């Protein structure tokens, strides 16, 4: 049957920073497929999670699933980190050889009424792993350090978040509006923004 092996990918990171893992990917492998060494290291193959996922799983269906899912099904890791560490953590994840999260896919911002949340979505092309890093931002403080010198495409993403949510990015090279006109008042995707209605 399937070899089950769980590796904590962020073991080293946990030792260095104060992070909390919120979600771990489920990956399924065909029993015929041999893993290469990198995949073995990066793996958490969880048949037990998969059976929890589907209650009606019998042995036969399991076999069927094994033959169908002969590729690694990627999912996403979610980490929650502290705001002060974000630059160090991103730099570490980008440069260290065990992760190689070299690409910042996008930045997601969300107004959760009590606070704001930014998620950095990272992609490791070498190991085919995705990772989302969540940061909470207090509404009174309303600012965070920029990462545009680490990932250069974060420049435009941060300008967009500043435009629509009003979060200030410290040390950003060119922080101004990108979608709305320059003389626009307010930040439209905030929950407390009031849309002018005509009728």
């Amino acid at each position, binding site marked *: 049957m399937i070899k089950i092996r769980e590796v904590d990918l962020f073991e080293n990171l946990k030792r260095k920073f104060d992070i909390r893992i919120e979600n771990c990917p489920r990956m399924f492998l065909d029993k015929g497929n041999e893993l290469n060494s990198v995949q073995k290291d990066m793996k958490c193959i969880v048949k037990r999670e998969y059976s929890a996922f589907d209650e009606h799983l019998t042995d036969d269906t399991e076999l069927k699933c094994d033959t169908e899912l002969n590729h690694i099904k990627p999912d996403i890791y979610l980490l929650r980190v502290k705001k002060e560490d974000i630059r160090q953590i991103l730099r570490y994840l980008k440069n260290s050889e065990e992760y190689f999260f070299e690409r910042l896919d996008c930045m997601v911002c969300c107004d959760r009424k009590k606070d704001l949340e930014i998620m950095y979505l990272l992609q490791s092309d070498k190991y085919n792993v995705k990772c989302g890093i969540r940061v909470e931002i207090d509404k009174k403080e309303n600012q965070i350090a920029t990462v545009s010198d680490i990932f250069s495409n974060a420049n435009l993403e941060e300008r967009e978040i500043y435009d629509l949510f009003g979060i200030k990015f410290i040390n950003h090279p060119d922080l101004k509006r990108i*979608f*709305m*006109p320059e003389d*626009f008042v307010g930040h*439209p995707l905030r929950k407390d*923004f009031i*849309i002018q*209605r*005509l*009728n």
Partner: protein
Amino acid sequence: MKIIMSSIEKLYKWSRLNSLWPLTYATSCCGIEMMSVSASNYDIARFGSEVFRGSPRQADLLIVAGTLTLKMSPILLRLYEQMAEPKYVIAMGACACSGGMYRNSSYSVVKGVDTIIPVDIYLPMCPPKPESLIDALIKLRKKLNDKNPGGRFV
């Protein structure tokens, strides 16, 4: 003298109605319909409006095809002001007429182009079929023919 002037006016009117050159201005899906109007199947050239000009100086007709956002509105106003008299405007599509589905809930869309520039013909649909754009053009021609709007060169 009166007879000569009136016949010249008629000539001007006839020539103006049959050469309403639109400006190439399209911001969203209505622009696709406008393109198909100018293509061979519907063929707006039958009404003398097939010449989509790239410059506002050479255009007589501004077809505002598509959603007008807040950031685009000063550019549209400038294009309209750069057009030479006499100039006519067709607001094409629900967004250009009133804001359409963005009217009540959008922060970035202008609620109707008539808040910025005067509009002669409204054509509300989402998006209008090519036939209806031809219909709007014919209605505009009728309007010009009936009312004899004051152009500077008559």
